């Protein structure tokens, strides 16, 4: 025989369970990897995407100017000749948060992306390729900035 109190307790537990399960898809929907974008260092940001130790590689290419006059608009391109690359990342080492952009590579697109980034100051810029088998390869280039793009 169940008392009224026990019944209430049970239904409360069930409701709690429902609430938590309802929350799961919501957090899954918010796929944006905030942790990676808040990471201060290149290594931390790479780790957030499942990358391991960074290895320099000739198969990853970073294109950008040697000197950027305006740090608010620095054209940066990443490309790779490797097969089986899952993510391509652009990182600026001395920005408040290193990670600029992450591109998911699929079979339907060439692993070659070009975009424009903001740079607070002269810094090394990294192009990182994370392969499906967990290898993390990078190329870097120093870009000098005459006028910072994160100023206030």
């Amino acid at each position, binding site marked *: 025989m169940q008392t009224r109190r026990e019944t209430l307790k049970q239904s409360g537990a069930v409701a709690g369970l429902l609430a938590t399960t309802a929350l799961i898809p919501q957090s899954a929907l918010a796929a*944006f990897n905030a942790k990676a974008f808040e990471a201060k260092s290149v290594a931390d940001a790479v780790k957030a995407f499942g990358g391991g130790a960074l290895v320099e590689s000739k198969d990853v290419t970073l294109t950008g100017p040697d000197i950027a006059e305006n740090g608010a608009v620095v054209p940066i391109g990443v490309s790779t000749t490797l097969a089986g690359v899952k993510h391509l990342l652009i990182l600026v080492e001395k920005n*408040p*948060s290193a990670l600029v952009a992450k591109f998911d590579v699929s079979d339907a697109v060439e692993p070659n992306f070009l975009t424009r980034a903001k740079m607070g100051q002269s810094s090394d810029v990294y192009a990182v390729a994370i392969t499906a088998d967990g290898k993390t390869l990078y190329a870097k280039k120093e870009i000098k900035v005459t006028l910072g793009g994160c100023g206030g």
Partner: protein
Amino acid sequence: MADPMRIRAQAAGGNATVRVLMSHEMETGQRKDSSGKTIPAWHITEVTASHNGKPVMTAEWGPAVAKNPFLQFTVKGAKAGDKIAITWKDNKGDTRTDEAVVS
């Protein structure tokens, strides 16, 4: 609602080069206004591209992508007349989709 994107897709050698210019403030969350208060971050977080309705590329962006972002990528096997759609979503939940035809 944000302004429309400018998308240009050109077929060349069996692939199509897609260039997108989005219209967005891309506020970093680092800047301060005249009274010294930090301006909250407002930037595009997710960009997806689809080719004839099939998703081909997704990207996640931080606030360090430049204002009015530019993006160039290449879609394999896209030919003239194909449709390329680009969708972005920002951290305020605003979203916009625009479509272009490969020329």
